[in-house]
């Protein structure tokens, strides 16, 4: 007996250990299956990456839209909003009687109720070019509805106390022709002066929000019938400890001819209007689904071809006594690995686009839940794509390997 054979006999004589939980070779086989045919792997990865990229950007846009369509509501700091009956979205504001504010203040549980005016305006640049804007008017001492993310210029209260003072966003500065603090422009032929900059106060309609005092907003609101008393909303903060829903019900009972909404309600109403009533949301969601479908078809096709190539080996495993679940694990793991690689490349593309467009007025967003969610969906889609291959494996006849 040679030394090799003696060693072999000793090792083989040992009793094999069998464990209930153990790592197995299915992952290795799955990976080698993928890596063995690099062209097919490349097609799979490109397909999944492309689907991830398209889905990520589309859903990122959707997230951005849901934020920008309700920016003023979400950042208003109010618990409740009173608006004209039938209001569709915050940007399409219609006038409200000022007495609504006083009626609100007289309601039990209301701590503060403030006047808020949102109105279209025409911004005139020094060169005579005009831009449509939203003029947002709030009291200088307001608790709610103030501009946020101020990055330059006066503080909100000081800015709103400054005669003719307006605050614009840096993202729209170029569009409005603003280079620096102190520049003067006209809104509806009334002189205004830039006294502060915000950053990231985006608008869905691409008409920038320009914050100013309620007094100035009213003075430029030439289109309104009674501009001196004009308001469009009453943001409300409830008293500490008062249930928001209870106060909302009281206000609604007190003023049945207006809409009283919580901030989340008003926010979703504003988003839903743009996203679904206009078809914008449907377009985004359907193109995301289409991208997923394309990815699934590509993954399914390449996975199926790979499985067909390996049928003799899979039949061999069955003949040797391997269970179907062992073969399923190989195919599903193969799908998951291909999906994961494609997802990493695709998501890298999404994050690159997000980063490059960070200064744009309507950039896609990629919050962590969306990044992880798309990963989960992609992996689920890849497993779905493996179903045809699994059906093929289910029908494997182990005697075929002898032919």
């Amino acid at each position: 007996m040679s030394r090799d054979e003696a060693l072999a006999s000793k090792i083989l004589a040992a009793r094999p250990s069998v464990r209930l939980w153990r790592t197995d070779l299915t992952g290795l086989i799955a990976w080698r299956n993928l890596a063995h045919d690099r062209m097919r792997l490349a097609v799979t990865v490109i397909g999944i990456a492309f689907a991830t990229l398209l889905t990520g950007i589309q859903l990122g846009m959707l997230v951005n839209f849901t934020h920008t369509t309700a920016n003023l509501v979400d950042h208003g700091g109010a618990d409740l909003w009173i608006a004209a009956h039938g209001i569709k979205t915050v940007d399409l504001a219609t006038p409200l009687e000022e007495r609504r504010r006083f009626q609100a203040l007289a309601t039990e549980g209301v701590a503060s109720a403030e006047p808020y005016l949102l109105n279209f305006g025409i911004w005139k640049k020094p060169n005579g070019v005009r831009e449509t804007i939203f003029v947002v008017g709030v009291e200088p001492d307001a608790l709610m509805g103030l501009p946020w993310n101020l990055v330059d210029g006066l503080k909100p209260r000081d800015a709103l106390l400054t005669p003719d003072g307006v605050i614009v966003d840096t993202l729209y500065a170029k569009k409005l022709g603003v280079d620096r603090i102190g520049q003067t422009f006209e809104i509806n032929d009334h002189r205004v002066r830039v006294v502060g900059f915000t950053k990231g106060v985006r608008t869905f309609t691409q008409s920038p929000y320009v914050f100013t005092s309620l007094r100035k907003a009213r003075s430029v609101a030439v289109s309104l019938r009674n501009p001196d008393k004009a308001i469009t909303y009453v943001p409300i903060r409830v008293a500490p400890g008062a249930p928001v829903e209870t106060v909302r019900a009281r206000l609604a009972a007190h003023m049945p001819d207006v809409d009283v909404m919580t901030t989340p309600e008003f926010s979703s109403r504003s988003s839903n209007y743009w996203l679904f009533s206009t078809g914008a949301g449907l377009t985004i969601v359907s193109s995301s689904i289409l991208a997923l479908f394309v990815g699934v078809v590509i993954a399914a096709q390449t996975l199926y071809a790979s499985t067909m190539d390996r049928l003799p080996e899979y039949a061999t495993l069955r003949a040797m006594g391997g269970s179907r679940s062992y073969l399923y694990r190989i195919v599903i793991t193969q799908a998951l690995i291909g999906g994961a690689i494609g997802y990493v490349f695709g998501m890298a593309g999404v994050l690159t686009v997000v980063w490059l467009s960070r200064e744009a007025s309507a950039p896609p967003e990629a919050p962590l839940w969306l990044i992880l969610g798309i990963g989960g969906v992609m992996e689920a889609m890849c497993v779905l794509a493996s179903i045809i291959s699994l059906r093929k494996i289910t029908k494997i006849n182990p005697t075929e390997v002898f032919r």
Partner: protein
Amino acid sequence: MNGPRAPVIRAVGVGHVFGTGETAFTALHAIDLDIRGGEVLLLMGPSGSGKTTLLHILGALLTPTSGEVFLREKPIAQLSEEERGALRLKRFGFIFQSYNLFPMLTATENVLVAFDLARADLREGREKARALLRQVGLGEKLDAFPNAMSGGQKQRVAIARALAGDPEILMADEPTAALDAQGGLGAMELFRRLAHEQGRAVVIVTHDPRILSLADRIVRIEDGWIVNTPEAS
């Protein structure tokens, strides 16, 4: 491990019919056959004679339409597909004509798969896989991929894989068909050692006349009938 042995497999009145009605084809007619440990048995016959069908039935890959197969006196013909799979894993080793190795796995990994199917510890399994490969003379090719091996070497990997579960019965389908004369004789010598030194039953389906002299027994099948079972000289 020499001397007379009790049958490992006993086929009693085994028949098999493919299809039904007018298209029915009888592949095997009431076959009676004992296979003993420690012997190399050749199943021979012309194409379509039923020898491969018999191998399938003896190897628990196919259920006979009549008769019974006993493994160590326990009937196995009517076991479920999953039960037969578990039985094959523990008691049988298969060697295929075209080897059917995973091309993207090394020799060691190809053998390790068999340990993996049996849920053995992979670290121990790897050592055993290497030991088996050394035992079949592939100590130099442990980490080689199949495309870097000759036909004979692939055959030996397939044999090592078949031995991984320490099976009582080895079943080989045309194991020498793709090998040259020297390789074929080498494979047969290995089968003889596995039978005679380790007491395994080795059943080989073959057309190859070069290996007749190395068999312990030859079973000739024609048109689904056993025509004679001479002891080889």
